[in-house]
């Protein structure tokens, strides 16, 4: 066990802190994605290597060599200072790494610089009404006609489709091929004729998701990433990234601490909530599990830094992280009782009504990004080496 990052990294941490001390006044606080404040902050972060840190200079990034601990320190310090760590979103977190892996030179130079600067916003067109957990069963078709693909079909659960400039989209180009081999990965602007976006209101009342309909949408054939029929492989170069980041244990610990504060503040029958022995026991139990997940996260970080493999360790994070967070949010509602029902514009809601909202939001995350049941399939098959279910005879 050596829990220190070492002198080089502690010096780096000081640099980050000094940057934050000088510049955090310029950080956006809730401004819109297109606001000049957000875009200027993003440019400043890239210039100083706190965003797009490892993206090559040729594509508009900072061009540092990948260093897991440096990235971690940046994240830790920005979080501690409660300062926006720059833009995220599916373009930056998923498309850019994909293009770096498998994109053509032209695609890299065209798409990466405006994407990382926040000038080009993306949505991800993967799921369909008939292709959720079985994503490879997707049916949106793309047929070649001259220099174009002609795309027809429907996507669903498309986050930020109503805001996005472009979409990266999985389509079926080889309908006769086995399902994993007939898919291609296309890029096209959301302004292309034939695209209709309909908001999908979720249970929290927010319309972040959309349904997206394609009717004879023409996409130049050069806007394919990878080869025809290789879209599944292209998409999977980075799908693992998404799973790991859901249910971050540090955020869960922050929520745990907020709940503890709430329970010391609120009383029932003249007794602080935290003095109720049942609640106390449950809180200590949640704390054990959140602590275990935080330490587990440190173990994963250490494995990456030291290039050590513990396959099971990374397979469980999405399942455990989202389920634990959901349970914590639900428990907060329980301790509040009737007061925990306050919602919407109700001035009596606690902590901005976030307990109810997060309780539902994290149920969404339990389902999205590979349901808990799919995670268990993956854990048992890849982690424990158990066999796949036999295919049904057709």
């Amino acid at each position, binding site marked *: 066990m050596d829990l220190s990052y070492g002198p080089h990294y502690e010096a780096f941490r000081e640099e980050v802190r000094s940057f934050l001390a000088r510049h955090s006044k310029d950080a956006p606080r809730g401004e819109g994605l297109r606001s000049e404040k957000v875009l200027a902050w993003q440019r400043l972060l890239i210039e100083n290597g706190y965003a797009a840190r490892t993206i090559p200079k040729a594509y508009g990034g900072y061009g540092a060599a990948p260093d897991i601990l440096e990235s971690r320190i940046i994240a830790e310090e920005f979080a501690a200072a409660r300062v926006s760590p720059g833009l995220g979103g599916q373009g930056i977190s998923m498309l850019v790494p994909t293009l770096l892996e498998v994109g053509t030179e032209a695609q890299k130079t065209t798409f990466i610089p405006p994407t990382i600067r926040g000038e080009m916003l993306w949505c991800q067109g993967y799921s369909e009404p008939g292709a959720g957990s079985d994503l490879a069963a997707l049916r949106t078709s793309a047929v070649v006609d001259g220099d174009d693909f002609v795309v027809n079909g429907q996507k669903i659960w498309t986050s930020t489709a109503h805001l996005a400039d472009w979409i990266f989209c999985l389509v079926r180009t080889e309908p006769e091929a086995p399902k994993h081999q007939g898919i291609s990965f296309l890029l096209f602007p959301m302004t292309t004729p034939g695209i209709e976006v309909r908001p999908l209101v979720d249970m929290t009342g927010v319309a972040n998701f959309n349904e997206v309909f394609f009717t004879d949408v023409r996409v130049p054939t050069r806007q394919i990433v990878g080869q025809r029929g290789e879209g599944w492989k292209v998409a999977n170069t980075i799908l693992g990234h998404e799973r790991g980041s859901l249910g971050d244990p540090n955020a869960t610990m922050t929520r745990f601490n907020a709940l503890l504060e709430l329970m010391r503040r609120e009383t029932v029958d003249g007794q602080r909530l935290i003095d109720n022995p049942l609640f106390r*026991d449950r809180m200590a*139990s949640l704390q054990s599990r959140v*602590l275990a997940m935080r330490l587990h996260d440190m173990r994963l970080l250490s494995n990456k830094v030291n290039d050590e493999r513990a396959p099971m360790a990374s397979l469980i994070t999405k399942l455990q992280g989202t389920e634990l967070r959901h349970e914590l949010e639900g428990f907060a509602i329980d301790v509040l009782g009737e007061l925990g029902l306050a919602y919407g514009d109700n001035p009596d809601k606690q902590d901005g009504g976030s307990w109810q909202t997060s309780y539902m939001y994290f149920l969404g995350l339990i389902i999205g990004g590979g349901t808990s049941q799919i995670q268990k399939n993956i*854990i048992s098959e890849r982690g424990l080496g158990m066999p796949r*279910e*036999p295919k049904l005879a057709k």
Partner: protein
Amino acid sequence: MRFGLSEDQTLLDATVRRLLADQAPLDAVRAYADGGDDHALWSTLCELGLGGLLVPEAAGGLGLGVLDAAVIAEALGYHVTPAPFLGTAVLFPRAVTAAGLNNDPVWQERLGAVVEGGLRIGVAFPQAGGQRSRDSVTAAGENLSGTVTLALDDAADAYLVASNDGALWWVEASASGCAREAFETVDRSRRSCRLTLTDCAATPLTQDPAVLAELRAVAWVILAADSLGAGRAMLDKAVAYAGEREQFNRPIATFQAVKHMCAEMAAELEPCTALVWYAAHCQDHIRDEALTTAGHAKALLGDVGQFVAKTATEVHGGMGFTDLVGLHYWFKRIGFNRQAFGNPQRVRAELAELQGW
């Protein structure tokens, strides 16, 4: 930065596991459970250095820490090995060190005997799991009287005894006024006894109750590590059994219901590894967090252990319920570890108190 085991620790772990697989198979556990003894096996383990793991090098030991001990405990739990590890090899040397007696020739000699495997020490803390009315040890001068219902190790040469006020004492099993009788527990992979002291001569180690608290925390970590090992063994056995057992013309491992049970066990156990390692590390290196992290490890492994013990048994179906596959040795060892030195509810109440909730 490295969050994990060192090369030495990994090597030690592999060596001990190889030896246990070879020399302490389930048949050996059954023989012990049927009334045999663990003396020969403990001697063999002491030849590997287990007895002197925490004994300072000056007294002939390896001078290692609680994390090393936790690695061993996990291996012992994995093999449900009968061994006086916790009292003899962990709590005793830890108590001598904490009491500042490492340089005292009398205690050095005892530590030396522990290293050689020639001295085993049981543990009798009346307040280990919360003090009950039947448990009490009081001192009159340097003589102790009272009862400890559950003392670790029925074959110890001496006991580390805590009196009600938290002071620690050394009591030889052969001393006049020291009586022990079997306290049969569900776990037959380790034997316990009821220790009754009647004006029994004792040697004081320390009056400082903080030492007892420290020892209890170390015991929490070791019991947690033991359950982690036992739980991992049960998961491995469940996965192996599911791969062999066929029903409806296919291995039951192909059924999602069975796969998901195994996945849940793996998902619950996996973060426990990091927690046990960290809690063990804190005992020697991060004093501020030593008690709380140990408590979290004990409480969480109590619960996760119980879940795994039940689920793994269910994966084995009717076979899991029989004595034939012997899975119940793991089930019962986990059950013992859950209650000993404070069950999860008890430990969590203490955790809340410790943190000033």
